[in-house]
């Protein structure tokens, strides 16, 4: 609850900070302070210290799974702002508003990770989406940014409509008329068509939000058109938080009837893996490649939805952290580059050895090489599905796709290290920026050797509202 309150309040604070001061540094520092407060507040929530005690009538449910998901989202945002905050100032004049919108997104995030009622899920998704439409179009004089925002808005609004329809169906199908997800599947001797169609509509609309194929078509254009800082934000924090909500919904709501819908998830996962990886191979721009790579990674995360075991839930948390850290790092470097194509990275290792080295660690993590967090993230996903004993074809297919993904991730490494060129960054990176990158890389490596350092948090706090 702390996170929801704090993020909403701080969003308003950020809006007014633009009136009080014109100093970009002050605004940025207020945002950093807010994010730090959010992290602390969320941690306090986990340990049982609440700002306000509000009766939520089972609409929200604060377990360590959702709250840990919040922590990952807030910590990632904090790192993002510290790394790329300066680049946000170049987008336009409304810096305070951008930060305010980010806090509102985080408010949506904390609803999506801890909802217990379909209405809260809907509210969360909407609170999270609308600021994102604005952020996508925040580069007002750029045509591509405008196009992306419009596309995103139209498609997003449509999928939200589907979600609402699905929720209505589920409400109608439930015996007592309830939105609480725990009661959706209870005491159902036979699956009614109404329930199943409601479930599928929800599946489709959330698949749209996490850009799973075949509902991914908006992703490359939106990620490419949006200002790169916000692309980084959308591709990591927003995406993994919705995933945590996704797993929560299907685990608690429909887990009992998994056999009925698993095949749909399997097909979506296979399609996402295939389309994401194959299309990423053909990209010439690193930014677009990362957009497709985020689709491909979503395919891997869908394996958690398929398995829904304890390992799967641990895995999605680990995946969220490993993937966010690595992607934020790569985007932070990408923003500083003059040229976003693969050729733009040629010879970066000579010019900026530290940037190239950390970027390599992030890329290796995304490819899932041991010693990086990405390996254990993928390991957990595979282990979760293998443990169910079903869908072995999908596991084999997933690792073959992972091998394809090595192709495009290593293209960047090849460009940086083995090709001649004069890759240039816009400005010389500051010592603070480099230090943060090293910190980020170190975190990726720690997750790669001791993933339990993060996962034990899931069990360290047993706390219910």
């Amino acid at each position, binding site marked *: 609850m702390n996170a929801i309150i704090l993020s909403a309040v701080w969003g308003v604070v950020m809006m007014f900070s633009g009136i009080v001061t014109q100093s970009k540094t002050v605004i940025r520092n207020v945002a950093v302070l807010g994010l730090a407060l959010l992290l602390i507040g969320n941690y306090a929530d986990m340990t049982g210290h609440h700002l306000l005690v509000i009766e939520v009538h089972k609409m929200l449910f604060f377990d360590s799974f959702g709250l840990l998901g919040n922590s990952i989202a807030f910590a990632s945002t904090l790192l993002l702002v510290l790394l790329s905050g300066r680049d946000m100032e170049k987008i336009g004049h409304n810096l305070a508003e951008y930060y305010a919108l980010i806090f509102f997104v985080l408010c949506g995030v904390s609803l999506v990770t801890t909802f217990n009622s379909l209405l809260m899920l809907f509210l969360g998704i909407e609170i999270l989406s609308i600021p994102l439409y604005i952020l996508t179009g925040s580069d007002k004089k750029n045509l591509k940014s405008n196009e992306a925002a419009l596309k995103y808005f139209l498609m997003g609004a449509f999928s939200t409509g589907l979600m609402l329809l699905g929720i209505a169906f589920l409400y109608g199908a439930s015996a007592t008329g309830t939105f609480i997800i725990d009661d959706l599947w209870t005491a159902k001797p036979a699956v009614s068509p109404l329930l199943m169609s409601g479930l599928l509509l929800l599946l489709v609309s959330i698949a749209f939000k996490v850009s799973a194929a075949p509902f991914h078509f908006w992703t490359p254009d939106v990620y490419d058109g949006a200002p790169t800082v916000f692309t980084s934000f959308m591709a990591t924090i927003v995406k993994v938080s919705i995933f945590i909500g996704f797993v929560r919904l299907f685990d608690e709501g429909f887990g009992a009837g998994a056999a009925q819908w698993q095949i749909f998830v399997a097909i979506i996962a296979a399609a996402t893996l295939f389309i994401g990886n194959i299309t990423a191979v053909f990209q010439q721009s690193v930014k677009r490649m990362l957009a497709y790579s985020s689709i491909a990674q979503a395919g891997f995360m869908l394996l958690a939805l398929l398995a829904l075991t304890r390992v799967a839930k641990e895995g999605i948390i680990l995946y969220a952290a490993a993937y966010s850290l690595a992607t934020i790092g790569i985007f932070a470097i990408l923003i500083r580059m003059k040229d976003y194509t693969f050729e733009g990275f040629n010879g970066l290792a*000579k010019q900026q050895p530290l940037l190239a080295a950390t970027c390599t660690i992030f890329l*290796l993590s995304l490819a899932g*090489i*041991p*010693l990086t967090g990405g*390996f254990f993230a993928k*390991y957990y996903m*595979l*282990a979760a599905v*293998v*443990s169910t004993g079903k869908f*072995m074809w999908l*596991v*084999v297919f997933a*690792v*073959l796709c*992972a*091998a394809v993904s*090595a*192709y495009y991730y*290593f293209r960047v490494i*090849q460009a940086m*290290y*083995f*090709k001649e060129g004069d890759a240039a960054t816009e400005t010389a990176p500051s010592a603070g920026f480099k230090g943060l990158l090293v910190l980020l890389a170190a975190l990726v490596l720690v997750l790669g050797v*001791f*993933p*339990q350092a993060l*996962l034990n948090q899931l069990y360290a706090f047993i706390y219910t509202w």
Partner: protein
Amino acid sequence: MIPVLLIVIPLVTGLAGFFEKSGRRARSWSLLSSLLTLAVSLWGLSLDKSSGLLHADVEWLPELGSRFAVGLDGLSTILSLLTAICFPLIFIATWRDEYRGRSWNFYALMLLSQAGLMGVFLATDALLFYFFWELALIPVYFLCSQWGGEKRIAVTFKFFVYTFVGSLLMLIGLIWIYWHTPDHSFAMQSFYAMRAKIPAKDQMWLFWILFIAFAIKMPIWPLHTWQPDTYEQAPTATTMVLSALMVKMGLFGVIRWLAPVVPAGTWAWGDTVSAGCIIGMIYASLVAIRQDDLKRLIAYSSIAHVGLMCLAIFATTSIGMQGVMIQLFNHGINILGMWIVVDLIERQTGTRKISQLGGLAQKAPGLAILLVVVALANIALPLTNGFVGEFLLFSGVFTSKATQYNVVFTVVAGLTTILSAVYTLNMIRRVFFGSTNALTDRVTDIRVNEKIVLAVIVMIIVFVGVYPKPVLDLTKETAEFILGKMNYKL
């Protein structure tokens, strides 16, 4: 304690190597480090088998059932010893090679690959094994792509993708077995205990999902296509690591993690794999005869030799398994000798084309003598280590009860020994004898560092060839142990 040191010394010194900022200092540093590793390895050899120093088992990921467990038994002792011997020899032999750019990184990456290899050979925990299996690849990828020949980037990448696909499939297999162990553990003992419990139906596909990774590394026909290109394009020091040590990872994997874990699958598919080995041996030998490039010739000869070792593993006889273990060591030493000679020739004449060389024996008699000894060992003449190994391998295959085609396999595989003599002796004739030409006129005899290395190699060749008992004693127990596990009916 000792296995941990064997991994940690190259790892730490390798990481420190990135900060040397001087190629010369890094070179001495890495030689020192590898000599230290060798000393530790010899120390381990001198200890009694029951010594507690030979094993280490530390808590790592308790929730995953994986521990940092490493240990030295006969098989891992012989392979870690080979690794420990090869690295100093490689550093000394390529002492004068120049590496462009930040050359200290080259030495640092070499040490990291040593750490990875040691980890693969020493791990007694499946997840740890997988960890090192992948880690050994990454430094080699950078070494080859950065300092290799003209087509290095594409060729190395092909190599990388091949092995990456294989290892990911292996990961699925390992996870599957892990979930089926009663205590959800990656420990070697738990895996071995599963051998009678995995249904035969599952062993059939498990065998392939694990074997493909090993077959790619060895490589076994038809998965060998990455190898000649990679050997040709890689910098010579890395080629030495690849061919002397990394191909052993595949054979080692089969002996340690495949055959004792899915014995029914191994029995069922033994003939199929053996047929692949045989085809590969004949094919590679024939191609080797027609090669004009020295590096490619040795690459193909390596495919033929490794094929024979793999054949002997699937023969499932005690004598054959002994042969494999001793030949793992011998092949590493011999091929290292061959590469050193090639490197010397290339550095002095600037070419590896056999057709452009000739008459080197007149100019470099020392080199010629040493090469001939190594080459004779390569074609397994008596009194050399190759003879001991191949004799055991052939008698193992011949007496095999695991296959009804043992006579056919022995005869056809025997042919490759003749073919091996053809291409090796032919190569010696054309490179070292005949008349000199403009290119080879300038050649001088080998220098002291190369003499030392080749002398050491020749000494090992002759010693093991005349008196193989210490090596056989070392591996005997493990060979019997593995065979006991492979015999799933008992």
